[in-house]
């Protein structure tokens, strides 16, 4: 992903994992609810083939919801939303067609409630405005379709009343879903603003010791070779060829150190920190510097977790980044003993975050070797 949408999952991928059990429950519960209601109201059904197709559509909708809400497929895309809502809507249309002319009451129709519940289960995954708009549009369609049914129903209510009854579950549940998502997004944005201040304050408090540590490193280098040489030359009567040669030598040495330092990226330094070996990173074009702060944070957290894993061995660990001109492709390889399932469980939350900030995140296990691929755009 290159742009972060204002959906809770994209702002807080870890927090959205908490909603996963509810999504799974909905994915299984909604089709079961539809089945039970269809059997209970079997006398309303005029065309059983359409009723069965309707149940198949809602089952497919549940499956799509379960797959799209998995952290391994994060983030929940707008395409997934269109698919899930589309299947729910198709299921409703087939259900209405299957009971057309023989439906006695609209208030006990399961389809509008199922569509509302599907939209409710999207609250953490899609932007609140999108969910609310989908709900309003679907409710209006259902309301209009309900109008001509008024004549054949068992109740003597007006077409308008019938339309309102049909629309209510979809409207109530979709707007509730949007309200829930909006509150979480607002709370999160407020916290992030505050946390940024706090992180900045900690960074600023740290500035002092970082400055002193950097300066100390420099002074150590200065004191070793440069200060004795310069002090000597300054107080000499004559500058000799030997002095000139020595000045060029020291100058060359400093320059090469400075060039090497300038070539090192945050990723080299991170590798040096986590495995004590910055040669583990192969990034000749310094593409790591093109990552955003969020991308760096997510990758850093993942590398720290991988390398601290009990089964991790330094041998075979490496990070490589290449570019095809417009996109950077990264590969992380790690050798971790201890079973694929366990490693997957341990890194799943970090992968969920990685999937939000990078594109094409793929994880493959071959024996104890984990290969993680992802890509990102040139900024």
């Amino acid at each position, binding site marked *: 992903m290159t742009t972060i949408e204002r959906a809770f999952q994209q702002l807080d991928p870890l927090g959205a994992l908490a909603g996963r059990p509810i999504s799974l429950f909905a994915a299984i519960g909604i089709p079961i609810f539809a089945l039970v209601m269809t059997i209970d109201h079997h006398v309303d059904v005029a065309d059983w083939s359409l009723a069965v197709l309707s149940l198949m559509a809602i089952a497919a909708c549940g499956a799509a919801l379960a797959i799209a809400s998995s952290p391994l497929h994060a983030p929940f895309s707008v395409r997934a939303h269109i698919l899930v809502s589309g299947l729910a809507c198709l299921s409703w249309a087939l259900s209405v067609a299957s009971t057309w002319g023989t439906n006695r009451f609209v208030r006990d129709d399961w389809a509008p409630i199922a569509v509302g519940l599907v939209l409710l289960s999207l609250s953490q995954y899609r932007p609140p405005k999108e969910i609310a708009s989908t709900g309003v549009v679907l409710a209006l369609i259902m309301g209009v379709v309900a109008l001509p049914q008024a004549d054949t129903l068992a109740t003597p209510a*007006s077409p308008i009343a019938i339309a309102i009854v049909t629309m209510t579950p979809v409207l109530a549940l979709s707007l509730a879903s949007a309200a829930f998502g909006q509150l979480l997004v607002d709370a999160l944005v407020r916290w992030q603003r505050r946390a940024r201040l*706090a992180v900045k304050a900690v960074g600023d408090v740290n500035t002092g010791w970082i*400055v002193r540590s*950097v300066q100390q490193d420099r002074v150590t280098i200065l004191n070793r070779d440069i200060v004795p040489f310069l002090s000597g030359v300054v107080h000499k009567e004559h500058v000799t060829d030997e002095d000139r040669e020595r000045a060029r030598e020291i100058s060359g040495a400093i320059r090469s150190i400075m060039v090497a330092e300038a070539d090192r990226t945050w990723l080299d330094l991170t590798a040096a920190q986590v495995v004590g070996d910055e040669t583990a990173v192969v990034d000749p074009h310094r593409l790591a510097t093109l990552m955003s702060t969020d991308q760096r944070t997510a990758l850093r957290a993942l590398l720290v977790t991988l390398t601290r894993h009990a089964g991790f061995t330094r041998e075979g660990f490496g990070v490589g980044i290449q570019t095809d001109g417009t996109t950077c492709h990264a590969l992380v390889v790690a050798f971790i003993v201890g079973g694929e399932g366990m490693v997957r469980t341990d890194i799943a939350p970090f992968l969920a975050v990685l999937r939000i900030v990078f594109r094409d995140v793929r994880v493959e296990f071959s024996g104890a070797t984990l290969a993680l691929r992802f890509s990102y755009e040139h900024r």
Partner: protein
Amino acid sequence: MSLGLPVHLVPHNVRRGMARASHVVALVCLGAAILVTVSVQSQFPDRVLWPALVAMAVMTGILVALMRFRTLVWTAAYLFVGAACVFWVSLVALTQFPGTTTSDTFVLSMLKVALIMVGFVGTRTFHAVFAAGAGFVLAGVATMVAVRQTDAVFIVDATAVASFLLVVTLHLGLAAGRRGPSAQPSLHRAARDEQIAATRYRIEAKAAAVMHDTVLNHLAAIANAPDGPLRRQLREQIDRDLEVLVGEEWLLDADAGTYDQARNDWLQSRLFAAVDEARELGLDVEVTGDVHAVTRLGTERATAVALATKQCLVNVLKHSGTDQAELVVYGSDREVSVMVIDAGAGFSEEETGDDRLGLRHSVRRRIESVGGTVQVWSRPGKGTTVMIRVPAVEGALGSDLRTEAAVEEAS
């Protein structure tokens, strides 16, 4: 992205979100009930339905007030006045359409659902579920009483039952989905490291520029100097630069001094003293988060937090089998929380023996005595996290937070 909601802020916000969502459902249901009643009235002008409409308008008014002021009083008012409205509307419906209206007719169902969706926030999931249960029972009783006043038959309202079950399922499901703080501290730590790395990179670049402008220039001047003594200006310049480079803090920004206050507040806090003592005992303590927040605690609470934290750190050293711990400080407008995290042996709470008295007495009781709470997440082999939360002293907010709190209140 990465700085998601901290684990301790999630439950409250989820309950607030559920309350907001419940209120929206209630509003839509009441709106639908009113519109359907108006539609029925226009269809049957001879029936007297306006008393029901008045009751529904009253209920809607209290709901709007409850959405604005989420207090216990408005919640109770909504539940009891709402139950009276359900009774009244049931009575009107059952007497105006005798024989054709049942106790679970659409309008009555919508009113019952609206009462179940009372949306109480509370401090625990149980409170919210209890309030919804109260709404469910009161609505049922109100309808039952109305039914007894007429010749109608009481029918269990499937919509109301399903709505109540949905509220309970969502509350319990969301509460069950929240696990202990496993991955989040790692992300916060990574964000902090990223910040430090960026700062270090900036300072390194500045140091390189200074080195380039001074030492490298001088070396180049010497390398190209003609035979004989160095020029006097060059000699003086080299002397001056060496004096500065070796003897002074040439990298320190002028603006770095403005953060001295924040640093001093932390260094002088009781919590820092506790951390320092633990470090002397041989524990490697990494401190992250908004450490400045500890200044908002007041003397008594600051002392309690410091002593409790010290005990937690000592526990890490004694029991966890690791000599590394992390201390994370968060500050919100209402409270300050301190998390002590270790990746050590962990424990299960049932198996804690007398040697864990420290956790019970020195940590839990001490914090509870100053109005705070303590939560422990631990599993054998998975490390331990102790979260200490204490209310902040009123009026001790920083100006930025005060403004933010005002904005929050206004929204």
